[in-house]
């Protein structure tokens, strides 16, 4: 392993099951004034570290603007990290040269929020599905590619007849399936799923989630599941990372985080989900205000302006993740 970034302190340690190791990953976007001078930095990701084990589903949750999509895109190499390391299958892939990155991307795939929208409207489904193989496996002939494509199409539950259709001729749910098939043709080991069920009706969402679970078993996949829908995350993820304004504020086994949330932000977030048959959120919800502007964060803990527990020391220093509980870490001075 050739990694410059120092390993993060007190974090889930790397073991032989680790497929992805994120080390103090930071991504700042420049804020420029009308003359093009940099006047500040938008800290989209700040010192984010965690590891992903092979075969697990790791959920990244948070509200809009918390940096969860930036995290997925930085891992994919779509954004270049400002600092920090991304170790994927033993190689540091942060800031890789385009040529080397191409090989990596075979095994590391990114599924956009709406994979159907990434299909070319003028191409038949067949051509869209062949394209990744044409780029990454030039040795394959048409017949071999066709064989692979048909197998994948069957795996996502679509008839082979769909190969001759255009994207507009199939429904939104089917487009998502094609989008997934397109990613799977390269036999990746890790897939970053960015909001895979947003904008779907519940009945369609249910079938897509079941499909994702099936595919994971069938193709031995690991998912990084980015979502704002906590009930979906609770159902399918093994571990979750809760993000707030570019920082991971809580990390741990899904059950532990949902049963005993330690960070006050996680508590508020969980108490905001409506539960049918349970107590009404409108009677119990307490959190006031909205997240501050990420270009101008408060000193110390980022959550302190909205936090019901905040004390003087929260403004002085920024809390680090503490692994003080089994299967769980939280970045708060006052969590117990």
């Amino acid at each position, binding site marked *: 392993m050739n990694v410059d970034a120092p390993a993060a302190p007190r974090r889930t340690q790397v073991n032989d099951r680790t497929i992805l190791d994120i080390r103090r990953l930071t991504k700042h976007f420049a804020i420029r004034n009308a003359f093009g001078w940099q006047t500040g930095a938008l800290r989209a990701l700040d010192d984010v570290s965690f590891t992903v084990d092979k075969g697990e589903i790791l959920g990244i949750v948070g509200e809009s603007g918390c940096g969860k999509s930036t995290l997925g895109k930085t891992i994919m190499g779509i954004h270049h990290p400002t600092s920090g390391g991304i170790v994927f299958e033993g190689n540091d892939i942060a800031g890789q040269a385009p040529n080397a990155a191409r090989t990596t991307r075979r095994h590391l795939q990114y599924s956009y929020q709406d994979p159907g929208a990434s299909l070319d409207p003028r191409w038949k489904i067949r051509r869209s599905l062949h394209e990744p193989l044409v780029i990454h496996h030039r040795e394959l002939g048409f017949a071999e590619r066709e064989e692979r494509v048909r197998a994948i199409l069957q795996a996502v539950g679509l008839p082979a007849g769909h190969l001759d259709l255009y994207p507009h001729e199939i429904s939104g749910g089917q487009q998502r399936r094609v989008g997934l098939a397109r990613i799977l043709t390269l036999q990746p080991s890790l897939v970053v799923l960015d909001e895979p069920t947003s904008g779907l009706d*519940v*009945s369609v*969402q249910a079938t897509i989630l079941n499909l994702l679970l099936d595919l994971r078993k069938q193709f031995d996949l690991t998912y990084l599941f980015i979502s704002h829908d906590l009930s979906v995350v609770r159902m399918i993820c093994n571990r979750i990372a809760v993000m707030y304004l570019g920082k991971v504020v809580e990390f741990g086994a899904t059950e532990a985080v949902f049963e005993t949330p330690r960070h006050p932000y996680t508590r508020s977030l969980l108490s905001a989900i*409506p539960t049918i048959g349970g107590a009404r*959120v*409108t009677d119990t919800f307490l959190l006031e205000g*909205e997240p501050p502007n990420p270009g101008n964060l408060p000193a110390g803990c980022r959550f302190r302006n909205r936090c019901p527990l905040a004390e003087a020391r929260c403004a002085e220093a920024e809390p680090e993740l503490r692994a003080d509980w089994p299967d769980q870490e939280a970045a708060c001075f006052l969590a117990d």
Partner: protein
Amino acid sequence: MTTDLLRVRDLKVSFATDGGTARVLDNVNLTIGRGQIVGLVGESGCGKTTLARSILGVLPTNSARLDSGSIEFDGIDLLRVDPDTLAATVRGRQISFIPQDPFSSFNPVFTIGAQIMDLMKWKSPALDDRAVRRHGWLPRLHGARRRKADLARVLALLRQVQLPEPEEILRKYPHEVSGGQRQRLMIAMALLPEPKLIIADEPTTALDVTIQAQILKLLRGLATDHGISVLFTTHDLGTAWEICDSVTVMYAGQEMESAPGEGFFRRPSHPYTNRLLMSLPSRDSGISGIPGDIPGLINPPPGCRFHPRCEFATEVCRQDRPAPTVVGAGHEVRCHHPVSEERRHVLA
């Protein structure tokens, strides 16, 4: 004499499209009591927005056709009233609207204050309706004094929807405030004419859960305090559980079930409703979707439109649309084979 504020009966609406006539609403019934929050729940394309727009009277005139039925609002049939009268006295006055996307509803080149004050000029409840009708516009009799009174009222409204620093916000442009604040402004604007009914079209879909919880809390409080009825369309059963006194479920242009909130979630009686509730992610039972796809509305299945996807369907479902059956207090279901307690396990 009825106590209901709004009664939609056997409403039929169709749209002319290139592919033929889409029968978007098929004999739909809906009742809203005074001071009630009624949830109109359904998946995309089920006709909930069309129903909301029919009540508001803002269907596109070149393609939509109201075939039959009645919309009775506070004793008058909105479909039989002359459109000009409707615009002057009902629409935007007694019935107001909260849109799904609060950003595209503001004009980006004017300040928020200018836009709210403009609304105040036309829809202020203090104005005499007769003056509007006589002049076609409002005689601004006491310029400065009225502006001052209007401003005071707008500021009071903004405080009511719990916006911090209202004077500051009036000077801002729409892009300078956050999504949650924009939605609060929309609610303030909907409250401005002191309506009897607010139609809220998925008002929390574009918001994060913590902001959604704040907005739901606000809506619930305002409806209770002012005795305003709300028609709340949503595709999210969780939010419906949160704030609705009663729920009406639609599928492919037909209403399937309507019931008081508690009764609906504890004893869903329509097979579709049961399936919908089972599609929600839950840890105990996993999830099961509904097999099949939502039918097209140009050639919808005859009879009950859910029958091709329903495991209880029989010959009669293919031929007749079932009439409403009462299965509990205020609980009506339109199904030939409603799901009773003994049969619920069949679905699992």
